[in-house]
């Protein structure tokens, strides 16, 4: 034992290092954005082939009960077993699914006509009773086996669901809510009879009317689904209509990025999501893999606490906007897989005010504004964020250092952070907010209306509140647009945020996967996906 340990150390290191250079030098190519021009012919998919599609998800899921979670990845899995009244195309357009058509006779009343011949996996017919039951279970207090569904909030002012006739259900709202349709794809129809039989066991034995039925698996391990042969076909607006081409679908949970990418390259999985931009070059160099991107719907921004000095000075907030080079962040950290925004709305969303120009990177102007506000020597600033977003936060902090602000970053668990943010105890937070409806209502109201549930910047402006409230119940499209235009202008000038960027959804698949592309809302629907 005398000399051997360190001799072995040297040997060990030599051996280890010998292996590395194999993957070591991936040439960093210019990360050209894959525009995914190749559109697969949707009718070219062979149905009935006995193949399996494996999807590598970036996190484990929470449940298999469609009404008992608030999690996008969980919804991705559930959505392959359950259908909704309506659904979204990958580009975010709402199209009918179980509902054949709908009518909006009054601002607070929506009538949905249910498609005929829709069957649950157990062979029973899907009826208006099931639709009513589904929504009652979500909006009723304690209606979900004694608990209240966490998805209740997603249905806003929905007051009641009534059966009109055996093909029509009526949704009655407390007040007008223009984004009802846009929110409905998030709810999936369950079978009343089945739920009454199994109760909360639906979380382990799900049964819906979607293209795949549950075979086995647990939420921490993997979920195995197989084709439902009596599927009614899904939305006619999303061809091909009919049973899914894939005989089996498997969701694997692979939290490690490297694991996901290696598994895709090794052919163990066919589709992965949440690909970091750094991995794109590696994947694109692999002839067996195709990287696909789509505009995302998550707004990333730094929210500043407008109540706390010195951020209560609008000049300081603007100075910070000028000081952070968002283009450099998107170019270098996101490697271009993202779009900077000028104001608070998504670049491809509804009612975007195109008159607003980004603040842009102008450190001189920033210093000028800081000096004007009396902070020529800077001040201490803590940026809070969560682990996934830390790279951008650190980059921003180093840019703020450059204009003399002593910025540091703290990583928190979101649960701990949220409390303190709402209480106005933190200075600045870098986070994001999903806006899959593409409607400003779903973003501006929670984030910037006085005291609303996600108002981390403590922003309170009666003028803005009035505009947002008016837009909530305005039925006319043009009226809403003009209200939101004005709102954006106010927000832009008051700068409660450092306006950030919207990242692209980067997903990748084996090159033999057909008829699949990422959705803006980051769901992975496999109904139409096949293999060559």
């Amino acid at each position, binding site marked *: 034992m005398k000399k051997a*340990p*360190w001799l072995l150390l040297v040997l060990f*290191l030599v051996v280890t290092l010998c292996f*590395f250079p194999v993957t070591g030098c991936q*040439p960093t190519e210019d990360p050209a954005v894959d525009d995914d021009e190749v559109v697969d012919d949707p009718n070219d998919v062979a149905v009935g082939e006995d193949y399996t599609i494996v999807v590598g998800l970036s996190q484990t899921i929470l449940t298999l009960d469609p009404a008992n979670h608030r999690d996008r990845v969980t919804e991705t899995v559930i959505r392959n077993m359950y259908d909704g009244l309506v659904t979204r195309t990958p580009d975010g357009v709402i199209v009918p699914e179980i509902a054949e058509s709908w009518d909006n006779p009054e601002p607070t009343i929506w009538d949905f006509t249910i498609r005929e011949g829709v069957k649950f996996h157990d062979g029973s017919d899907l009826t208006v009773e099931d639709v009513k039951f589904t929504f009652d279970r979500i909006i009723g207090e304690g209606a979900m086996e004694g608990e209240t569904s966490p998805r209740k909030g997603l249905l806003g002012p929905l007051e009641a669901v009534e059966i009109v006739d055996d093909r029509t259900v009526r949704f009655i709202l407390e007040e007008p809510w223009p984004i009802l349709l846009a929110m409905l794809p998030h709810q999936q129809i369950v079978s009343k009879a089945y739920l009454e039989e199994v109760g909360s066991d639906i979380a382990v034995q799900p049964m819906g009317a979607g293209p795949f039925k549950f075979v086995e698996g647990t939420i921490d391990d993997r979920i195995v689904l197989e084709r439902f042969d009596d599927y009614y076909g899904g939305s006619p607006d999303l061809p091909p209509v009919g049973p899914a081409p894939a005989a089996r679908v498997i969701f694997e949970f692979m939290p490690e990025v490297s694991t996901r990418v290696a598994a895709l390259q090794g052919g163990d999985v066919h589709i992965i999501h949440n690909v970091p931009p*750094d991995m794109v070059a590696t994947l694109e160099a692999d002839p067996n893999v195709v990287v696909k991107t789509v505009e995302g719907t998550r707004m990333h921004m730094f929210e500043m606490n407008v109540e706390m000095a010195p951020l209560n000075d609008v000049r300081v907030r603007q100075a910070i906007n000028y000081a952070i080079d968002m283009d450099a962040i998107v170019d270098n950290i996101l490697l271009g897989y993202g779009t900077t925004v000028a104001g608070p709305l998504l670049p491809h969303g509804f009612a975007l005010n195109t008159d607003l120009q980004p603040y842009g990177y102008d450190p001189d102007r920033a210093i000028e504004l800081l000096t004007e506000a009396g902070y020529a020597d800077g001040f201490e600033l803590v940026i809070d964020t969560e682990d996934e977003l830390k790279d951008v936060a*650190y980059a921003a902090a180093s840019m703020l250092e450059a204009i003399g602000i002593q910025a540091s970053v703290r990583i928190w668990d979101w649960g*701990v952070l949220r409390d303190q943010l709402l209480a106005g105890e933190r200075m600045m937070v870098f986070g994001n907010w999903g806006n899959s409806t593409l409607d400003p209502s779903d973003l501006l109201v929670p984030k910037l209306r006085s005291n609303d549930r996600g108002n981390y910047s403590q922003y309170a402006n009666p003028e803005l509140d009035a505009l947002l409230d008016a837009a909530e119940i305005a039925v006319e499209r043009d009226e809403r647009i003009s209200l939101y235009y004005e709102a954006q202008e106010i927000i832009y000038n008051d700068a409660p945020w450092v306006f950030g960027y919207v990242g692209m959804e980067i997903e990748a698949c084996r090159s033999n996967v057909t008829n699949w592309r990422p959705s803006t809302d980051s769901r992975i629907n496999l109904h139409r996906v096949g293999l060559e």
Partner: protein
Amino acid sequence: MSQIQPISPDKMSKRDYYLTRLRLTGKNFKEFMGKMSRNPSGMFGLIIFLFFVFLAIAGPYIVPKDPMAISLTDRLLPPFWMEGGSREHLLGTDQLGMDLFSRIIAGTRISLLIGVLTVSISIVIGTVLGLLAGYYRGILDTVLARFADLLLSFPWLIFAIFTMAVIGPGFYNLVFALTFKGWVGFFRLVRGDVMAEKTKEYVDAAKALGQSDLNIMAREIMPNILNSIIVLGTLRMGFMIIMEASLSFLGLGIQYPEPAWGSIVNIGRDHMLSAWWISTFAGVAILVLVLAINMLGESLRDILDPRLRRIE
């Protein structure tokens, strides 16, 4: 009553007493160094360890780059010998363009500081409580021993992960979480030794001479168990460094972008496929330091306290 009274320190003048002690220590030290120089693995460990100590102290003055300087245009550069690498960044950069060579040097300070702090606090707490419990026994001993047993039946890493998860990450929290259980080892060692030493004649002699308990503990018993404490402390230090790295790796210890080795390995995990160097070099640093400390510790054990051999 015995006719022969041993010469106790109190019978000598204070100066003489300390002179004898000093001479003894001097002689012991020479003897110790003699043994040490005949122990190549111990010497090797000592040299590497001193090298790391040097890095920890001089680190800030010798790092070629600011270990926390972000450079978005230098992201994920490979080590200098690979295509695309440069001598600017000897071991490459991480995903924010921080220089890994500088970060690893700077990380030495964190690792060593954690090791030294946790072990010394554990030693102080464990020794004091162990002396008291072992010397006086009684209810204090029962309570402490039970509590120690309870902590022992909690696996180390699980306890540390759990505590860190609850009190949150950070340097001092880490020291707290590690010492919370760390003192138990020293407590048990000291307590056992004290109970054994207490039965020996020299303690009775000192007692008969009317020395105070404190004196007996500090002057008579302590010197006899010091070697064991030093040996266990050294071996424990390597362990603490691994614990720190493990917790930082899980995101529960020292937080990025502080240059802690464990968190560098963790950051590298996301870049295993494209930037293997991030995890690899930080891991090598942990391994080499812990290896050196344990080599030193095992040699110390062989030299100072062979009976500890059974403690693995």
